C-alpha cells in the first residue's frame, strides 16, 4: 500500500466514522412548525398536538429519548382511548336488556337506545350496528346464544379501537419518522452541505485515493492476499463490515426514525432532483448508487485487462445511475408515476399490487405504458433475451442487486460455499421463493379483480406482508447485502431472488448460453470455483471437459478471467450440443467418457 493509498484509506475511515456520528449531532425540538410540517390533516394535527403537548418545545439531545417519549405519550393516549371506546361486558348486557328473554329476532335498531348519547356511546353504537348488520332479522332461541354472538363481535370491535380512535402501530411508526425529521435542528440542518462534503464527499475522495493508484500496477489478475486479508478472508474487518451493514439495513427497514440526520444530509440533492425532501429511500438509493459507482471504478481498474469485465461494469453503473436512480427521481419531479424501468417482476414483487396498478392506470398513457412495459418484460423480454444471451444479460449487466454484488461485493465473491450440499439448499430455497411470489401475486390480483380478500381462508394481505417482511426486507436487504463478508456477494441472488429463479429455469432449459471448457487444458487448480460468486463448482465441470450449464450462473465471467490456463469461455451458440458429452482431449488410446 502506497502512502497515498494509506492516506486515502484513513480519509475513508474518518469519513465513515463521521457519517455515523452525524446521527448523533442534531437535537430535537417539537415546535409548532414541526407539528405543522409533519402532519397534514387538521383534525389529526389537533389530536397529536394535544397528546404530545408535554413534549412541546422541549429540547432533546438524543433521538432515542425523543422517540421514547413519542412512544410513551401516544401509547398513554392509546390507553385512554381504549378505556373510553372499548365495549365492556356491561355495554353488552345493556344491549341484551333490549331484547326479550325468548324468541328473539335481532334488529340493529334496538341498539340505539341501549347506550348513552356521549361521544363514546355514539361510537360504540355505530360500531355495533356496522358489525352486526349481517345479523339483522336473525332469530335466536334465547339470550345466551345472542350474548355469545355479541361477545365475539365485541372482541372484534375492540381489537380495532386503537386503529380507529388512537394510534395504530403503523401510524406510530410514521409519526415517529415524520416528527423526528421535522423536529431535528442543529449543525446538520444548519450546515448541511458542509456535512455532506465531510462525510459522503470525503468518503468518495478517500475511496478514490485508495483505488486510483492501482492503475500504476501492471494489468492482470489481482487476487494476491485475498484470503490473507482480514476483510476479504472472513477476518475481523469482514465481520465488522458485515455487522455494520446488517445494522444499517435494520435501521433502514424498521427504524428509519433514527436516521433522519442522514436524510437531512442528502436533502440538497433530493431537492434538486425531485423537488422534495429526502426520504430514507432516497438516502439509501443515493448511497447505493455511489457504492456501485465508486466500487465500479475499482472493478474496472482491477479488471482492465479484460474488456468483458470492463464493459459489463460500465453497464451496471449505467443502469444503476440512470434507471434505478435518476429516471425515477425525475419522473417524480414531473409528477409522473415513478418506476425503475428495469426492475422486473417478480424481483419487483409489488409490481402487481393494487396500489401500483391503480397508480399506473390512473396516470394516463405514461402509466399504462409502464404497466405494459413491465408485463412485456416479464412475459416476453425475459425468456427471449435469456434464450439468446443467458440470464447474465440481466443478473450481471443490468440488475441493481447484481450491480452491487459485482462492485461493492467483489472483494467478497470468493466466500460463497461451493459444496454439493449448498447447491441442494440453494435449489430448494430459491424455487420456494419463486412459488411464494407467484402465489402471492395471483392472490393479490385475485383480490384486485374480485374484491375478495381471502383465498381458502388465507388473507392475501397477510401473504403480502409476510413476503415483504421475510423476503423483501430481511432476505434481500439484511441477509442479501449484510452477509457479503460471511457468505459471498450473491447470497440473495443465489438463495432468494425469484427473478433469478425464473431466469435460471429459462437458462437451464432453453438458452444458447453456456460456458465452454477448452479441451483438456484444465489443471484443476480451483481458481474458477473459488471465485465463482454463485458457488458453482466450475472446476468439477472443467476438469471433465464438460460444458457448464447451470441455472444459477449469472455469467459474470470471473471464472474465465481468473483461470490461469484459458480454459473457460462464456458463449452463446447453437443450443444443440450444449449438454454434450464430457470430453477430455489428448488421449488417443482411450475414448474417455468421464
Amino acid at each position, binding site marked *: 500500500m502506497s502512502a497515498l493509498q494509506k492516506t486515502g484509506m484513513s480519509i475513508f475511515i474518518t469519513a465513515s466514522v463521521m457519517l455515523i456520528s452525524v446521527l448523533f449531532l442534531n437535537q430535537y425540538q417539537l415546535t409548532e412548525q414541526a407539528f405543522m410540517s409533519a402532519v397534514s390533516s387538521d383534525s389529526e394535527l389537533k389530536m397529536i398536538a394535544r397528546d404530545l403537548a408535554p413534549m412541546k418545545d422541549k429540547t432533546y439531545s438524543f433521538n432515542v429519548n425523543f422517540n421514547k417519549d413519542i412512544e410513551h405519550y401516544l401509547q398513554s393516549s392509546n390507553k385512554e382511548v381504549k378505556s373510553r371506546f372499548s365495549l365492556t361486558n356491561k355495554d353488552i348486557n345493556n344491549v341484551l336488556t333490549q331484547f326479550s328473554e325468548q324468541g328473539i329476532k335481532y334488529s340493529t335498531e334496538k341498539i340505539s337506545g341501549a347506550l348513552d348519547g356521549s361521544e363514546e356511546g355514539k361510537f360504540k353504537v355505530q360500531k355495533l350496528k356496522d358489525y352486526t348488520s349481517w345479523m339483522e332479522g336473525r332469530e335466536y332461541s334465547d339470550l345466551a346464544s345472542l350474548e355469545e354472538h355479541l361477545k365475539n363481535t365485541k372482541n372484534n370491535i375492540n381489537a380495532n379501537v386503537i386503529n380507529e380512535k388512537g394510534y395504530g402501530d403503523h401510524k406510530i411508526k410514521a409519526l415517529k419518522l415524520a416528527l423526528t425529521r421535522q423536529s431535528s435542528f442543529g449543525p446538520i440542518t444548519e450546515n448541511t452541505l458542509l456535512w455532506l462534503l465531510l462525510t459522503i464527499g470525503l468518503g468518495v475522495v478517500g475511496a478514490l485515493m485508495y483505488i486510483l493508484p492501482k492503475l500504476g500496477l*501492471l*494489468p*492482470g*489478475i489481482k*487476487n*494476491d*492476499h*485475498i*484470503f*490473507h*486479508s482480514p476483510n476479504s*478472508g472472513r477476518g475481523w474487518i469482514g465481520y465488522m463490515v458485515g455487522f455494520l451493514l446488517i445494522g444499517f439495513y435494520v435501521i433502514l427497514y424498521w427504524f428509519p426514525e433514527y436516521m433522519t440526520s442522514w436524510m437531512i444530509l442528502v436533502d440538497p440533492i433530493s431537492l434538486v432532483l425531485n423537488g422534495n425532501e429526502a426520504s430514507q429511500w432516497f438516502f439509501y438509493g443515493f448511497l447505493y448508487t455511489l457504492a456501485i459507482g465508486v466500487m465500479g471504478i475499482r472493478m474496472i481498474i482491477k479488471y482492465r*485487462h*479484460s*474488456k*468483458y469485465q470492463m*464493459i459489463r461494469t460500465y453497464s451496471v453503473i449505467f443502469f444503476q445511475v440512470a434507471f434505478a436512480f435518476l429516471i425515477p427521481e425525475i419522473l417524480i419531479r414531473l409528477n409522473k408515476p415513478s418506476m425503475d424501468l428495469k426492475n422486473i417482476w417478480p424481483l419487483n414483487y409489488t409490481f402487481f399490487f393494487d396500489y401500483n396498478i391503480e397508480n399506473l392506470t390512473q396516470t394516463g398513457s405514461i402509466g399504462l405504458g409502464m404497466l405494459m412495459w413491465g408485463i412485456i418484460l416479464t412475459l416476453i423480454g425475459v425468456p427471449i433475451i435469456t434464450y*439468446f444471451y443467458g440470464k447474465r444479460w440481466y443478473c450481471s449487466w443490468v440488475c441493481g442487486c447484481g450491480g452491487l454484488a459485482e462492485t461493492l461485493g467483489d472483494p467478497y465473491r470468493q466466500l460463497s460455499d461451493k*459444496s*454439493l450440499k449448498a447447491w441442494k439448499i440453494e435449489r430448494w430455497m430459491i424455487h420456494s421463493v419463486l412459488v411464494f411470489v407467484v402465489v402471492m401475486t395471483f392472490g393479490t390480483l385475485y383480490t384486485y379483480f374480485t374484491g375478495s380478500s381471502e383465498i381458502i381462508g388465507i388473507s392475501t394481505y397477510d401473504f403480502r406482508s409476510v413476503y415483504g417482511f421475510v423476503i423483501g426486507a430481511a432476505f434481500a436487504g439484511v441477509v442479501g447485502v449484510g452477509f457479503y463478508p460471511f457468505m459471498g456477494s450473491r447470497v440473495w441472488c443465489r438463495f432468494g431472488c425469484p427473478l433469478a429463479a425464473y431466469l435460471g429455469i429459462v437458462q437451464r432449459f432453453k438458452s444458447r448460453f453456456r460456458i465452454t471448457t*477448452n*479441451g*483438456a*487444458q484444465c*489443471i*484443476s*487448480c*480451483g*481458481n474458477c*470455483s*473459488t471465485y465463482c460468486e454463485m458457488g458453482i463448482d466450475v*472446476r*468439477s465441470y472443467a*476438469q471433465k471437459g464438460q460444458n457448464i450449464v447451470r441455472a444459477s450462473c449469472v455469467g459474470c*465471467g470471473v471464472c*474465465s*478471467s*481468473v483461470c*490461469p*490456463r*484459458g480454459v473457460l*469461455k*462464456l*458463449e*452463446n451458440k447453437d443450443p444443440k450440443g450444449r449438454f454434450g458429452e464430457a470430453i*477430455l*482431449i*489428448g*488421449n*488417443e*488410446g*482411450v475414448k*474417455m467418457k468421464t
Partner: protein
Amino acid sequence: MKHVVIIGNGIAGITAARHIRKNSDFNITVISAESEYFWSRTALMYIYMGHMKYEHTKPYEDWFWKKNRINLVHDYVKAIDTSSKKLLFDQNKPLSYDILILATGAQPNKFGWPGQDLKGVSGMVSLQDLKKIEDHTKNINRGVIIGGGLIGIELAEMLNSRNIPVSFLVRESQFWDNVLPQQEASMISRHIKQHHIDLRLKTELKEILSDDHGYVRAVVTGDGVEIPCQFVGLTAGVHPNIKLVKESTIETNRGILVNEFLETNIPDIYAIGDCAEHKHPPPGRAPVEQVWYTGRIMGETVAQTVSGNKTAYQPGPWFNSAKFFDIEYQTYGRVWNKLKENEAEFYWEHESEQLAMHFVFDKVSKTFLGINSFGIRLRHEFFDQWLKNSVSIDHVLKHLKEANFDPEFFKSYEEDIISAYKADYPDSKVSIKRKKVLGIF
C-alpha cells in the same frame, strides 16, 4: 476381489483410482505420505499468494472418496516386497496388494551445490515444501531463485506478491530459452523485469553460504558475485521420485521403466505420471514427460488395462499451457526452441501489448506443426484436429478466428496476424470471415 493399491495421490494415481472404480468392482487403496486428500499441485503458488486456501485446491469434496469406495491411507511406504506382494509402512501395518500402481511423482533437482541443504533452502513441489517456503520467507530482505523454468517463475511471482525482492538466476541467455524460441523467451524476460525481478541471465549458482546458525546468508554465482539473501528456492527442474523402488527389483533408469502398457518389469506392477520413464516413448515424445496432462492420460490408460481392457499409452498431439506472471501461454503441437531442418516459422508480436503467436510448419509441404500463443487463448479442440489431420498453415490461419477462445469483446488480432503472415509469405492466399453482429446475425 482383487486389491489394487496405488502409491501416490497426485493426478496420475487419483485418475487411475477413479477410472478403475468406474470400470471394476476391485478394492482400491490410494496411499500418500504428503496429504490426506488429493490436492492440486499446480495450485501451490496460489495458496502462498493468498488467492486460495489449501481447501480450495482439493478437486473433490472429502465425502467423495468414501462414496466411491476408494480407501485413502495417509502414510509413507518404506519398502515394496515384490515377492510376497506386500507394502511396508512407516506407521501402518503391512498391506498386501494384487495389483500395484506406482504414481510417486517427482522431486526437485539438486545438483550437489555446496550449501544446498542449509536452512532456508527449499524446492517447490510438495505441501511440505510450501510450509518451508512459508516459514523461511517471513521478514526477509531477499530471496534467490535458482533455475528458470515454469516452477521458478511461479516462485518469483510468489515472493513478489509479498514484496520480497527477488534475484532470479537463470543459466540460459533468455528465460526458458531451452524450451521457448528466442522471440518469446526475450518477451517473457522483459515481462519478468517489468515486475521488478532482478533477472540474472547466463548466471549459474556456485554455492550457497551459511551464517553461524546453519541458515542461508548469501549465494555465490558462477562469476563469483555474492548476493546476500535469506531464502533460496531450488527450481532447476524435477526428476522422477524413485527412492522407494530403487531398493526393489523394479527396473529403473532416470524414472521407473515402463513399456507401452505402463507395465514395469515385475508383473502386476505399473508406473504412471511423473515417476515413469517410457522405454519406448510414442513417436516424437520424450521418455520422461512431467506434466499434469500426461499424468492424467497415463492414469486413464492404466485404469483400462487394470480393469481388463489392455490398452497402450497413446497420447494425442502435444499440448501444454502456463502463465508467466500476467502472460498466458498455450501451445499445441511442437514449437522447438530452434527450428528443425525441415521447418519454417512465422512469428507475430503485438507492438505494445504482450501478445505473440509463433507458428511452425513444414518448409515444403506447408503442413502445420505447432503453435505457441501468448496472451491469446486458442481452442484446443481445433488444434488437436488440425494436427491430427495434418492441415496446412494456410488452413490454420484462415480459421484462426474460429479457433480463438478469448472472452467476448476482446480485441481480435487475426487480421493483423494474417496480413503480417502475407507480408512474410506473399504467395499465400489466406482471407478471413466477417464476425456476426451481437453474435446472432
